[in-house]
């Protein structure tokens, strides 16, 4: 036995799967990671760790892990792949991709990502170096994962904002500058289930221990709702009405922070008028929450000296998610909670470091004029939606898959898929995605394991790395961190290494100043005044110093605007509850409510046929989307895809606890195991997404059982919001429950 060395690093998928960024200590013996433990000196998690990261050795050294590039040798879907060298793999990708580029233009290859890993940097680097503007979260209807909320925050208040749980301060809860929030509205999330978006879920629990009261906005009962001061069990998808109802109470009763609003908020009169259209009685009718409960929660929030709102993906997934987010932003804004200790703090990338450039000048410098022109002219969805055109560089996912199917207005012939099990994961109308993607001439998938997507589509699979195997960095809020490679598994390469090599081949001029990804990292890190090596010497992470990236009250101190004046980073310098950016984008400048496309109210006939509202997409502590079902320590704790069914509903449908049944609607049927529980209301059911069975046959037609278990087969599309961002009926699809025998009889 060799000596065991212990190295610190920072987590960012793959393996744990999350967007956290906790400190971890890797125990390495003879070049192999034998154990992982949380880093007690890291301010993000203070040693604490989720079960997924603690099971990382089982993931890294799993017998199914792909450790060499694999080229398809049989028919697509046959599951027959042969190992090839990296040189051959790169040559093959270059040749095939160049063929498509020469014949149809670079925009004819889409670059599809899911979530997880430090993916944004490397995939945009490759897409743009290749010359394609079509970088997309393929399958995710409405790009409904944080992007709608981010876009709304940028438009309304000029900056992003998060609940202040002291995460920007090195001494955390002990820092005298920080104050305990009196109240946090937890809106559409169960934070203990994971670490979304640079936020350690249990920070909310830390605050609760210190006295913070919770208002839960959640259709379900959870650990947290049972401990909440107010629990508003709204009908799924009605969040927009709820926000307006609360605004109505606050403004109607004069509970807003008048001093703050006078000075810093633009459009109070217009907002007041709009909110007046949503009296609590009306909102009670829409949401199913009694009027008095809504009013009390609104008063409780408005009367608190400091409070914040921690929100989740259900907001994006409301029809018109960007407007729902707008309404919620108004709540924290008019109560004067912005950028105060224990409030809603402005969140900027640490040290103003970004993973990838986005200014036009930087893009021209790196990728040339032509790419920038293509980004506006050829990017799918940029024409249809002004918000899509003006906020971030994404192509619009619902439109991309339609275009792949129709070839209009121009053909799509190839896909580079990285960190995305499209077919087993996020794809609404999953079968349609399958049919459309099957038509492509060339598909490369970068992943760590085979999954339904690699099996059904890949011509080549390139093996990527877990975080202990890679060098990278992150500046997502705080602290600025480096991820340091400590071990190597097989021939795996990191996403950065893979994309860097290919990008160099496609864009030798633009990329010539970098010899390796490390050169590029150092350039990105430059605003911090540190190199990767400096960061390593400093212990791997740095909290932001006083300046634009560190709270508090930056709007008063002139730290948010380019011109150095006090104010917010918007046109008016104020928080625009009347949003001029939305106005520019032909969107309603005030928050409004849209009823979900399928619901007891909008489709009463369909509701008769399919009387249960299905909520999907919640997080398990043990899995990350469609990942990790093959990890023994995790799978044993949640072996089956269950569906939560209220006891009354179970009685009505005559199903017992543990019974396998189908969930069904006009789009198909999917297997689930009944869990009888009062976590849900009788009118709703809840089930996790991302299920496929790695232990089953992978080759077609079985594809790891994906068509038996992929719940998003039942979710229709396209359903993006008016802004192009938001929507997708992941939380509000109508279904029914069918017993196995009953189905057999019907089929026979």
């Amino acid at each position, binding site marked *: 036995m060799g000596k065991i060395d212990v190295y610190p690093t920072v987590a960012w998928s793959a393996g744990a799967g999350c967007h956290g960024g906790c400190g971890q200590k890797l125990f390495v013996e003879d070049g192999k990671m034998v154990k*992982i433990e949380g880093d007690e000196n890291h301010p993000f998690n203070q040693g604490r760790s989720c079960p997924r990261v603690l099971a990382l050795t089982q993931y890294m050294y799993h017998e199914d892990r792909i450790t060499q590039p694999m080229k398809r040798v049989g028919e697509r879907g046959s599951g027959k792949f042969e190992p090839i060298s990296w040189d051959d793999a790169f040559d093959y990708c270059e040749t095939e991709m160049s063929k498509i580029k020469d014949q149809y233009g670079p925009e004819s290859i889409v670059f599809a990502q899911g979530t997880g890993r430090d993916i944004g940097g490397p995939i945009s680097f490759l897409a743009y170096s290749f010359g394609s503007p079509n970088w997309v979260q393929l399958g995710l209807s409405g790009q409904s994962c944080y992007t709608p909320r981010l876009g709304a925050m940028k438009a309304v208040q000029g900056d992003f904002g998060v609940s202040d749980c002291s995460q920007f301060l090195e001494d955390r809860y002990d820092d005298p500058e920080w104050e305990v929030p009196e109240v946090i509205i937890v809106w559409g999330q169960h934070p203990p289930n994971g670490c979304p978006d640079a936020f350690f879920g*249990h920070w909310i*629990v830390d605050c609760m221990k210190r006295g913070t009261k919770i208002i839960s906005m959640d259709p379900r009962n959870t650990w947290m709702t*049972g401990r909440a001061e107010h629990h508003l069990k709204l009908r799924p998808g009605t969040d927009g009405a709820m926000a307006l109802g609360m605004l109505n109470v606050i403004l109607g009763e004069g509970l807003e922070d008048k001093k703050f609003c006078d000075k810093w908020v633009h459009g109070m009169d217009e907002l007041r008028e709009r909110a007046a259209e949503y009296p609590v009685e009306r909102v009670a009718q829409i949401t199913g929450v009694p009027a008095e409960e809504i009013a009390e929660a609104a008063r409780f929030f408005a009367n608190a000296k400091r409070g914040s709102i921690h929100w989740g993906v259900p907001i994006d997934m409301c029809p018109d998610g960007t407007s729902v987010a707008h309404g919620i932003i108004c709540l924290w804004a008019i109560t004067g909670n912005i950028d105060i200790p224990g409030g809603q703090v402005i969140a900027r990338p640490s040290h103003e470091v970004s993973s990838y450039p986005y200014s036009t000048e930087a893009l021209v410098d790196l990728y040339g004029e032509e790419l920038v022109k293509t980004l506006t002219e050829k990017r799918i969805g940029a024409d249809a939606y002004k918000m899509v055109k003006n906020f971030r560089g994404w192509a619009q996912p619902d439109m991309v898959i339609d275009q792949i199917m129709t070839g209009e207005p121009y053909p799509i012939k190839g896909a580079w898929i990285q960190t995305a099990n499209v077919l087993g994961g996020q794809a609404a109308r999953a079968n349609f995605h399958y049919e459309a993607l099957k038509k492509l001439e060339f598909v490369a998938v970068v992943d760590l394991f085979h999954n339904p997507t690699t099996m059904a589509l890949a011509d080549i699979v390139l093996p990527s790395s877990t975080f202990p195997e890679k060098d990278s960095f992150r500046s997502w809020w705080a602290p600025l961190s480096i991820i340091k490679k400590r071990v190597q598994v097989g021939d795996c390469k990191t996403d950065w290494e893979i994309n860097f090599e290919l990008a160099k081949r496609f864009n030798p001029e633009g990329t010539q100043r970098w010899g390796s990804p490390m050169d590029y990292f150092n350039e990105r890190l430059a605003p911090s005044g540190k190199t990767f090596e400096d960061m390593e010497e400093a212990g791997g992470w740095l909290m932001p110093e006083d300046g634009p990236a560190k709270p508090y009250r930056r709007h008063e101190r002139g730290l948010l605007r380019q011109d150095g004046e006090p104010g917010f980073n918007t046109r008016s310098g104020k928080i625009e509850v009347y949003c001029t950016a939305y106005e520019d984008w032909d969107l309603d400048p005030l928050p409004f409510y849209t009823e979900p496309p399928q619901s007891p109210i909008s489709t009463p006939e369909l509701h008769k046929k399919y009387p249960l509202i299905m909520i999907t997409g919640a997080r398990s502590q*043990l899995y990350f989307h469609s990942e990790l079902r093959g990890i023994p320590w995790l799978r*044993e*704790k949640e072996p089956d895809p269950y569906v939560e069914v209220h006891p009354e509903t179970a009685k009505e449908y005559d199903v017992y606890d543990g019974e396998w049944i189908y969930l069904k609607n006009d789009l198909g049927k999917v297997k689930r195991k009944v869990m009888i529980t009062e976590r849900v209301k009788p009118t709703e059911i809840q089930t996790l997404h991302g299920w496929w069975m790695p232990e089953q046959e992978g080759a077609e037609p079985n594809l790891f059982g994906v068509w038996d278990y992929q719940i998003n087969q039942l979710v229709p599309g396209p359903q993006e919001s008016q802004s192009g961002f938001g929507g997708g009926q992941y939380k509000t699809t109508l279904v029914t429950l069918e017993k196995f025998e009953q189905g057999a009889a019907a089929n026979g």
Partner: protein
Amino acid sequence: MAKYGMLIDYDFCTGCHSCEVACQQEHNYPVGKNGIRVTEHEYDTGEKIKIDFMPFLTDLCDLCMPRVAEGEKPACVKHCQSACMEFGLTKDLAKTLGDKSKVVLYTVQPG
């Protein structure tokens, strides 16, 4: 009296499973074997539905004595995401019980 014990403020246990996987990793226990098990309890108080969790130490728990000897916390205690577990001398932990609600004290005779 067992020298060492574990105090768990179970009101804050979120059922996150970290203690379970931490224990399995620490002892290299296969599936099915664990020093700690977390169970869920769902009930109606008349006002609300509560979902509570209760970690239970099994006979396989050795209180991580080898770690403790090295000055480390037990693996579960260290990684608990709610920081609701405390390891220490039973007599010290017992003294604090009177001031707390919803805690359990497990005593284990280390082998």
